[in-house]
């Protein structure tokens, strides 16, 4: 196990050093700025990162450090201000809406923190949704492998409202993996779960990497969750500020402390901010 903590000056950490797998997704000089002038927010302030094929990568950092923004830019859900993103050999920045839709449909998988499932569809229908949308045949073997891996065989005909939060997230994992995408992006997939359900989901993600050969990138605030990853990247103020490979919970905690420990409680701020903002929100 090695811990390298860079200082906070703009650097290009030699991410992925010591591992041999090729990068399935790459970002170079990624900048995302919201607003302009004095009020400009640099959500991403120049990021170079490679996500290795066949690995589970965790991304950590204080609230507002740009984790979600990075995921969205990598997945073509958001357009970077500058810099390039290449996923599975294709330049995401050059794609039009149609191509982006096809990219998401065929090469990418998504798991959000909540609201992952279409409420009118059964678990099985939710799992095959991306394939149905793409009008691709469902690979039965893959479907069975994924369903068995998440342990949902007896829940396949249930609607999301009849499933627990953990089960719903596992369905979401199954959906993300059934089409065998090049890479799965998961933004706080266990954020709403108790520790037992979180363990199920994380265990499954790790197994999908180890046994099914998937690539998973996951944002988390939880050091235990991060410890399931092959590698943990640390973000602060829109920059990559550190990295641990083969982490343990303690090592992650240690790394967070050395990066400015008080931010670990970031979750709390998030909730407050959300409530305040949404109180006045409507279309």
């Amino acid at each position: 196990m090695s811990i390298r903590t860079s200082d906070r000056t703009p650097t290009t950490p030699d991410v992925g050093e010591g591992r041999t797998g090729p990068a399935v997704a790459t970002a170079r000089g990624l900048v995302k700025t919201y607003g302009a002038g004095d009020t400009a927010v640099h959500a991403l302030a120049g990021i170079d990162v490679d996500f290795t094929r066949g690995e589970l990568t965790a991304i950590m950092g204080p609230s507002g450090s740009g984790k979600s923004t990075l995921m969205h830019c990598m997945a073509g859900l958001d357009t970077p201000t500058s810099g390039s993103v290449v996923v599975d050999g294709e330049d995401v920045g050059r794609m039009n809406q149609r191509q982006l839709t096809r990219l998401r449909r065929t090469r990418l998988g998504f798991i959000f923190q909540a609201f992952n499932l279409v409420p009118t569809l059964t678990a099985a229908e939710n799992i095959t949704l991306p394939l149905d949308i793409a009008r691709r045949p469902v690979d039965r073997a893959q479907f069975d492998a994924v369903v068995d891996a998440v342990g949902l065989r007896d829940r396949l005909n249930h609607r999301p409202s009849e499933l627990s939060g953990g089960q719903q997230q596992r369905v979401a994992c199954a959906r993300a993996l059934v089409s065998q995408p090049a890479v799965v992006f998961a933004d706080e997939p266990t954020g709403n779960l108790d520790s037992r359900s979180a363990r199920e989901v994380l265990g499954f993600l790790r197994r999908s990497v180890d046994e099914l050969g998937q690539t998973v990138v996951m944002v988390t605030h939880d050091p235990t969750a991060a410890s399931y990853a092959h590698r943990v990247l640390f973000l602060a103020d829109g920059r990559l500020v550190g990295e641990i490979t083969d982490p343990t919970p303690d090592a992650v905690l240690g790394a967070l402390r050395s990066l400015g420990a008080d931010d670990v409680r970031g979750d709390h701020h998030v909730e407050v901010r959300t409530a305040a903002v949404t109180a006045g929100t409507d279309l």
Partner: protein
Amino acid sequence: MGRVALRGIRAHLVRFLLSVLAVTLGVAFVAGTFSLRTMLSSTFSGIIDSAMVGDAYVRGSEPASTGGPNGTQVGEVRTTISTDLARAVDAVPGVRMALPDISGPIVLVGADGTAVTSTQAPSFATALYPQDDTIRISAGRAPHGPGEIAIESATLAASGLRVGDRTTVVVGGALRTVTVVGEVAMGAPMAGATITFVDVATATAAYAPDGQVPTITVLGEPGISERTLVDRISPVVGATAEVVTGDTMRAESRASIETMLGFVTTFLMIFAAISLFVGAFIIANTFTMSVRQRMREFALLRAVGASPVQVFASILTQAAVVGLLGSALGIGAGLGLVSMLRVLFERMGMDLSGSIPLDPSTVVISLVVGTVVSIAAAAIPARRAALTPPVEAMRDDVVVHERSLRVRALLGGVLVVGGLASLAVAVTDAAADGSALIGVAAIGLVVGMLLLAPVIARSVLGVLAAVFVAAVKPLGRLARGNVTRNPRRTASTAGALMIGMALVGAASTLAASTQASTRTVVANEMRADFLIQSATGAVPSGAVAAIDGLASVSHADALSYASALVTTGGATPTSADSTTLVGAPAAAFGRSLEVSTVAGSLDSLRSGDVAVQKTAAKDHGWTVGDVLTFTTDTGVTTATVGAVIDSKALGVPVVVPDSLAARLVPTSKQQVDTVFVTPAPGVTAEQLRADLVGAAKPYVVLSVLDQKDFASQLADQVNQVLVILYALLGLSVVIAILGIVNTLALSVIERTREIGLMRAVGLGRLQLAGIITIESVLTALFGTAVGVTIGVVLASALPTVLADTGLTTLVIPWTQLAWMLVLAAAVGVLAALWPASRAARLPVLDAVAYD
């Protein structure tokens, strides 16, 4: 709080615009109906005021049945009086002049060689007294002798004739060449009536050869009140006549016109009510959507100290603003509609009152209706917003508790079963009042199905969606999930179409059945090869004679309509005994018409007996051998019932031989409705037709029809009624589109996150638009399928119930109904355009981040 409410409207302009539009449509109909009514009644008032200028009127004292319909008369029909009375009245001190009103139907041939007519308005000639100073001749002079006429200004303009021109008229059944010598200004628009003036001798010869007239107009000396005039005249007119003031006469005429307009108004108001009902639903939907989205805002307001009442009031304020705005626009739109209608009427030759009236009561009623409807519609969502505890609203998911459908299911079920039961009784029990039962069934089925719709929505939509689920994977399945997710909402959205389509389903089934039945009747009962009818409803006697005289005609049997007070057993006749009669030559049966006899024999008509219709016999208890008493102007006549018949073609209670008809009704008042023609031996159909057309041509208004022409002419009449119905259906389609747009917009906003999710996992924009379009189409199909089913079920009972009136065959117009479904699908696609493109434009990230 008021400021919060107004800001709210400004922030959600588009959505509130839909609500405003909904109110506007409904109110436009209300305001339009009222002002149309006011316009029509002021037009007719104008006609009455300028055409009935007498200070007093002398008329018959008894109600009576005169021969045939008389276009110039409104109100109760009375016995006629002798023109001689005029001389006696004239002698009364204070009377300036007493003028018998002599008028009757005329056919005026215009400059283009066709008859001057306009839809529904009468065409008549009236006697022009040289001494009558109430009539202003604006050009030329008054007519003298049978060869001259004067024409009312608007009629003159419509005819294309000018003073000095020669033309043809048909007066008293005879063709006559005349010169137009004058133009008469009436001082008010005459609603398209064709009005011609002839001199007194001509009018008397044509319309009052027996010296009997319906009324005598009395003009008083200046300074004598109408009342005094009446009091002075009354003693001289005797028992058979009575005298009323000019005001009474005008008020009576106005009242009978108001009654007529009342029917029109009621009919239109039903549609106004439907559109307001659907409008209310759109408003309720809009506010539900806005309230749901702003739960947190309300919670915040509550948290900083606003009371539930304040929250409630702030939402209702918004509703009131929407209602007022919509009503104001609606009044404008209503007036616009009426002006368009007026232009349309003018094109058809119907002059209506010049100004479009906007009386204060129309404005007030429209504003109140629009505002109350929107406030009432917003009340339920407003209450929900006000009562939600702040804590619950602050939570992430605002749980909307769906009320159970049990009560609706129960109530709707009871109503539908009740409706079906009364339908079953109407069909099976011959003794029951079928029409009333069907009315009950209609209300039960429509209201019941509206209530039941959310309950059956899931299964019906499941069936309808099967095609889409199979054909467009996975969009069909997703769309089905969305429309069945909130069946209550889908069902209410489909409500407008349901009502409209129920109407259309019933009407088109009824129309198809009527047309088929007519064909059957014509084929079964018409023996003659040709028949001749007139566009004015009366075949001139000259034409009848001309046809009868043709060498190629073996028989020409004329059927004339008349009416009389028919009683039995010496009962005193009242106006309720007024019965329509058909007079026909006894020999017509068997050669022109094939009529089936239930009892007795039609041969008895040769000896002066009469035949009664099976239904009338049942109603009045008439049997063969009974003696009927006929009371008309000309006196009292009796005749024996010689046969009970069952004829759909002769859809009247009593058939009399023409010898009796001539005694009941003066020849001048007889109106020949149809002439049946049988060819002489060896004459071909083409030859006969050519001869008949030649004989009929000079009379301009006659048409020569064979059996097929006749059936299809009747079918065309049915179709014309359908067109009006379809125009009104158009309105319910527009409202249905608004409703669907509104609901889809609501559900797109509600599902923003779900849409974002699906987009994130690869759903394309077109696919998303496809899902929303399928939802829309399914909603429209649901409303249409249920509505058409209700309509067809109701209409199917009619042939059994109304078999006696000639509706014998049930025909369900499947092709037409299929087109209704196609129309519904088109409506669905149209309604989905805006919401679908809106959903497709949602940025994926916004959707994902939406909360």
